């Protein structure tokens, strides 16, 4: 099915989202009713998801016979499905989490635009489309971070994310220009063919990787993360933890089996290994000492992205011959599985934060006595975060670390599990606060009185917890899907 006759079919979902964003904008400016825009936007997201599932079109998009700009492989389409699921789950959060004052139709527009960028990113096959998709993903998020304009922290978060994000984009662009200078090419295939470990190419690759690492909040490019997570409106924080991480990781997979493969792979892999270990260490340790829940979850993101990089390090060093295709697929699918599960967990936890207006760890005291169902669901999500079987977080770690062990990165996997023990401490601590501590009635400025979580948000948390449990006990369907995607990355 073609959406518009002159547009290639694989572009349909992205186009649907982009046009949907414009339509939402129009609809919003005429009705000025946020719920109309949100309803419409969620229908658009659903339609795009349905389109991708019903008629997944693959193919390469080029401009008048030039180099391939976008390669819609099964891999790109599968990642797009996951991203759309996460965006759909985040939509009600966005509705509930900004307060009636700032609940505007434009929120839905920005969500659709960010999702458009996110689903184009895994299809990028050219430095130009890579950059455009990355910025299309980032700019709506910058605006969303600053959405509560009367709140100093939100404005600061938006500004900080924008300034540092622009710096990272600048570095990426500069890196791209160096890659171009080294090879004279911009599309991934030619870059891959001409990759030589010359200083020019390596510096270019390092700068591009720095931009990617910034979006993934890998240490040492993570400094913005706690501040932005804390300042941004909570649903936007949920989006930040779910969408860009998965989309950029998918792009990274394509870079690692494409332009950064071959002679440069070893150096890129070692560099990524350093970032991964640093992220796991910093994220796991720093999360323990946080009193603010959103800062805690920010460090948790840093640690978890570090865990997800473990299979990608292994992926970087693998030769792309037929003997290793299965292992490459396993590594790529392991990272995607991990980040998708992490996205689900984050959305669930942030939904609870929004529903209860929880800001500090102390707000959770005695939650199990006040709202047992909610506390059970959050407990499942937190145990999953800690990697305790039979929850999805454990399966994610299993599927992420097994390819690393198979590829000979056993030591890195060992470091990973050691830090996952350290990281389990903060999850357990939160469970302890929720379940073991007595509820407190003291309301201070630091710990405002938490409100009871209403049923819609409770249902969101419970749905995410249920998904996490189901994926943990029956991982095969999702894993098979991702494994199939991993065999057709380009």
């Amino acid at each position, binding site marked *: 099915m073609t959406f518009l006759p002159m547009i290639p079919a694989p572009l349909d979902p992205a186009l649907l989202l982009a046009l949907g964003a414009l339509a939402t904008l129009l609809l919003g400016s005429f009705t000025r009713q946020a719920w109309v825009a949100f309803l419409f936007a969620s229908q658009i997201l659903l339609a795009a998801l349905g389109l991708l599932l019903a008629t997944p079109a693959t193919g390469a998009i080029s401009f008048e016979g030039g180099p391939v700009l976008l390669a819609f492989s099964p891999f790109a389409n599968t990642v797009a499905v996951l991203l759309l699921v996460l965006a759909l789950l985040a939509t009600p959060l966005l509705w509930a989490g900004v307060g009636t004052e700032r609940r505007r139709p434009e929120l839905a527009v920005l969500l659709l635009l960010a999702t458009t960028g996110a689903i184009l990113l895994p299809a990028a096959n050219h430095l130009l489309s890579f950059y455009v998709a990355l910025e299309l993903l980032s700019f709506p998020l910058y605006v969303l971070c600053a959405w509560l304009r009367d709140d100093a922290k939100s404005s600061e978060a938006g500004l900080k994310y924008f300034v540092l994000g622009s710096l990272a984009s600048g570095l990426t662009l500069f890196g791209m220009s160096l890659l171009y200078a080294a090879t004279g090419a911009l599309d991934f295939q030619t870059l891959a063919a001409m990759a030589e470990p010359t200083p020019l190419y390596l510096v270019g690759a390092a700068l591009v990787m720095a931009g990617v690492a910034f979006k993934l909040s890998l240490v040492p490019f993570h400094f913005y993360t706690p501040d932005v997570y804390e300042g941004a409106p909570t649903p936007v924080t949920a989006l930040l933890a779910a969408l860009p991480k998965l989309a950029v990781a998918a792009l990274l997979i394509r870079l690692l089996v494409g332009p950064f493969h071959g002679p440069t792979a070893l150096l890129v892999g070692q560099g990524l290994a350093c970032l991964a270990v640093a992220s796991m260490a910093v994220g796991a340790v720093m999360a323990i000492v946080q009193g603010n829940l959103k800062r805690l979850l920010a460090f948790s993101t840093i640690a978890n992205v570090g865990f997800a990089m473990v299979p990608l390090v292994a992926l970087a060093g693998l030769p792309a011959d037929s003997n290793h295709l299965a292992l490459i697929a396993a590594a790529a699918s392991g990272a995607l599985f991990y980040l998708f599960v992490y996205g689900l967990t984050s959305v669930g936890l942030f939904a609870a934060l929004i529903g209860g207006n929880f800001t500090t760890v102390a707000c959770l005291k005695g939650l199990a006595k006040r709202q047992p169902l909610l506390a059970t669901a959050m407990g499942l999500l937190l145990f999953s975060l800690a990697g305790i079987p039979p929850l999805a977080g454990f399966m994610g770690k299993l599927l992420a670390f097994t390819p690393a062990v198979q590829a000979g990165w056993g030591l890195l996997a060992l470091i990973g599990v050691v830090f996952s023990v350290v990281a389990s401490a903060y999850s357990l601590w939160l469970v*302890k606060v929720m379940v073991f501590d007595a509820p407190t009635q003291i309301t201070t400025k630091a710990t405002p009185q938490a409100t009871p979580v209403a049923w819609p948000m409770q249902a969101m948390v419970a749905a995410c917890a249920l998904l996490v449990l189901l994926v943990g006990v029956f991982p095969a369907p999702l894993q098979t899907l991702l494994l199939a995607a991993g065999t057709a990355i380009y």
Partner: protein
Amino acid sequence: MVLSTLILLPIATALLALVAPRSLVKPLALLGSLGSLVLCWPLYTGFNPAAVGLQFTESYAWLPSLGIHVTLGIDGIALALLLLNNLLTPLVVLASWREDRNTGAFMACLLGLAGLVNGVFAATDFILFYVFFEASLIPLYLLIGLWGGKSRVYAALKFFLYTFAGSVLMLVAGLYLGTQAGTFDFTQWGSMAHALPLAMQVVLFGAFLAAFAVKIPMWPLHTWLPDAHVQAPTAGSVILAGVLLKLGAYGLLRFNLPLFPDAVTLLAPYLMWAGAIAVVYAALVAWVQTDIKKLIAYSSVSHMGLVTMGLFSGTETGLHGALLIMINHGIVSAGLFLIIGVIYERLHTREMKNLGGLATLMPGYAFALVLLMLAAVALPGTNGFVGEFLGLAGSFPSAPWATALATTGVIFGAVYMLVFTRAVLFQAPSRFVADHKAACTDLSAREWLVFLPLLLLIPVLGLKPHLAMDLWRQPVATLIPEVRTLEPQPVSPTQP
């Protein structure tokens, strides 16, 4: 199908207990736990002790692309431990009949734990084993943290992090072995693992040991146990001592001994010494305790030291002894923790100076306590004697001096158990007991029901130990050649 039902039935009952109305929770939990006990009957009668290999096997696809399957199957060792677990669960449910704080969640934790532990003993796929092994931490974490004593939160966190840290090392080792072998069915790992170079075997042995040594717990990794025991509610302590400590020894039997014979030959002497030190050290520490629950907790460490010695003795006698001690300790220490629970329920104290003179106030209780005490000090005729004798006799040829040291620990064992008995039953009643005379009622019918099966098993297994030993004769015999054939080859540094 029996094994998967045995795993799922308690877990399903646990989920039901969470949502069931308050008045139905306890009968439901009892029904569920009795149901799994009944399910053990076809296992026991249908089990063929002479057959080689696993029985009641089941297999389902789980993550086929990685070679991970849901495979279940048991041998005699697993069967004995399954029987123990499913016997203890209805008893602790019955013993916790008076637990009124959040009963639904409490019973759900108990039954969930029972189902997961059944899973550990029945799993023959490493990943499945790990899933059950780790998931069993969650209910016990909640049991200690929610229904425990004063410093329950600290104890729960310490328990969780200690055991979690140990077992993730095992996970990486298992991932390595699974990827090398191309399957995660650990019963098929043998030939591949035996061919590994010694250094690799030692590393992998160490990783598995890290998980199981914490769980057993082996000296010097035992410090979490007294904390967890003292803070846990009675039911938690009973399950912890009765079943969960056996998971460590079971893991050693399933992984360390059959897979890494060269590493076992190399490291067994050190581990036997560690076991001997545990026996004596824990016995001495138990002697000076004034909290009776802590005393019994340290006695667990002491007994498990003897299990360690038997396991690494490399003799069939030692292995039989170790297994018997595991079962006996499961019965006797469970009984002793229940004994302590009975006092605590009545007097809300566990301090020796607050007790005494209960023999005259509670004669039936005194009878149960003395019988359990005699089994704990291994009096001939009780089940404790057979296990300790075989364990020590089996260890002696391999490590005479360590065994000699451990034997002194057995004497100290008698000392602290007699100190315990005197303090509770026979010393002059403390002022505290005198003040609370009315509370000191003898065992109720329900409590007798809890104790009777345990008290009956003491003489039965003491006089007819072969009832249990016949179950595991076959798997023990297959474990030994792998250990013994390597003894004549000295490990030289030049060996790869």
